């Protein structure tokens, strides 16, 4: 009798601990296009967690959805839907369906993370709420929005547009046009080639290395900008921080014109520039001779502007 009592207690303890642990489910789905067609676009809407997309050589979409919930009933309410449209994009979305009872779900206890493999040639559009978006190895660009979370873009070609309200952006080995917006968050760029790089950051630092872009426009309200790369013949480079330092390091010595304004601060140029100091903290300079010099327009209200060779 005593042993039976102990066994019941043990079972109750096991059941109790199991009930306290979250329930995790891992679903795997694979979708092949109809014969003769290919997957041109992927539209992902996951407001319940992270999204990771990797380009694949096969013309197939595979999705791994990892769901977490406090109990199996709530887990049943977590849904991932996949809608292939023969004439349009493949849409993947997640949802927490309404429950039959009014029992509230504990905060932070439900989550869906998506890991997707998609054809490299597919354009991607992805939106998350509080989560991270990471894409890698895609050739047709992407449009990514994270309200509260980081965005990582690696080995991607084509036009890439990103937007975060709160979170950092990382671009590595991107070949194409970049359009990045961040209300609060840093922007890091490494090995970027393309026609255009536009970034608007309200609060955060912008760091760029090994950039080779024809037109750059970077505006930061509060934060420093540090850009290193090659200026191209006929290129336009507008870099401004209202409240921060602007540093530009140039690798190639091509004909160049500079208009720099540091209203409360200093402007430093390499000695090879013919420098003219004007009123209002404006400095103009030029170097080299030839048609289509690169234009640099550098501004800061409070900060130091430095142009250097390396």
């Amino acid at each position, binding site marked *: 009798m005593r042993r039976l009592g102990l066994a019941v207690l043990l079972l109750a303890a096991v059941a109790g601990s199991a009930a306290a642990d979250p329930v995790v489910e891992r679903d795997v789905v694979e979708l092949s296009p109809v014969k003769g067609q290919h997957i041109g676009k992927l539209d992902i809407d996951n*407001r319940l967690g992270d999204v990771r997309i990797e380009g694949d050589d096969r013309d197939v979409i595979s999705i791994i959805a990892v769901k977490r919930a406090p109990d199996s009933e709530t887990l049943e309410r977590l849904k991932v839907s996949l809608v292939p449209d023969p004439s349009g994009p493949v849409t993947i979305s997640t949802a927490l369906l309404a429950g039959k009872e009014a029992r509230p779900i504990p905060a932070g206890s439900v989550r869906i993370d998506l890991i997707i493999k998609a054809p490299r040639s597919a354009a991607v559009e992805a939106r998350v709420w509080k989560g991270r978006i990471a894409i890698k190895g895609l050739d047709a660009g992407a449009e990514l929005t994270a309200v509260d979370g980081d965005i990582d873009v690696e080995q991607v070609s084509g036009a890439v547009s990103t937007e975060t309200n*709160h979170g950092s952006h990382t671009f590595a080995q991107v070949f194409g046009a970049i359009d990045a917006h961040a209300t609060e968050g840093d922007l890091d760029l490494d090995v970027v080639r393309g026609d255009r790089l536009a970034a*608007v950051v309200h609060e955060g630092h912008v760091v760029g290395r090994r950039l080779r872009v024809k037109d750059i426009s970077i*505006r930061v309200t509060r934060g420093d900008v540090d850009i290193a790369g090659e200026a191209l013949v006929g290129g336009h480079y507008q870099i401004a921080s*209202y409240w921060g330092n602007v540093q530009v390091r140039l690798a190639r010595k091509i004909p160049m014109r500079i208009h720099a304004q540091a209203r409360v601060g200093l402007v430093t140029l390499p000695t090879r520039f013919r420098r003219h100091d004007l009123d209002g903290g404006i400095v103009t300079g030029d170097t080299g001779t030839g048609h289509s010099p690169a234009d640099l327009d550098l501004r800061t209200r409070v900060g130091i502007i430095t142009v250097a060779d390396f």
Partner: protein
Amino acid sequence: MRCADVERLVTEYVDGDLDERRSSALRGHLRVCAACAARVEDEVAVRETAGSLAPLEPPSDMWSAIDAKLAEAEIADARRSRIWLWWQRALDGVRRHPLPVGLCGAAACAVIAVWLVRGGEQSATHPHHQLAEVSPEVKPSTPSAPVESGDPCDTVATHDEQTLCQMQAADRRYLDAIAELTQVIAEERAGWPAAQAARFDAAVAELDRAAGDELKRLAVVPPPPAVAGRDPLYSIYQKKIDLLSRAAVGGSP
């Protein structure tokens, strides 16, 4: 006058800055103290040697380097928070009026000491308060509270409350950015051409109208909060930040 006084006054004496009465006393001491006389002679010799050296020209880039460092330091000071400025102002006040500030500080210390003593007496008369604090029976009211992450939205109880909190945080970040840029523009726009200012104002008004319409639509959406419903509003806020940033930071309204 003693030897220690000579040591203290020797620089002023050699520089000729010492008043006549103390100079006379110092000279009188030197007549009777060989060690101090030697000390003063040494000081005079050093001055004469230094005066005979050719002036040293600083390197041409020294002043620009100093100027750059100075600008960097001043800009760093300019970026400090308002709290730092208030603290500097308070320190300045202390330096200017040490006596009244010292008296106020002493009075405040006395008040705190009295309060601490009385608090100690009260807790001694109510020992059960202290027992309750250390009792092992006392348990936290929310044993499954989430781990501290610094995000205030992680401390709410339910998923819906958390979503609502995150929406409010996102709204606040957009609106704070818009308010800050608007303030910058208010300072900058004095130099704008009238036509450009009018075009800018019209564009801002258009976005404000669109945001207002969107907020009206969201106000009648029944709970629970749907985050996707805020996409159009956030798109408008982002457009407004772009517009304001171009005018405030880029310098072209």
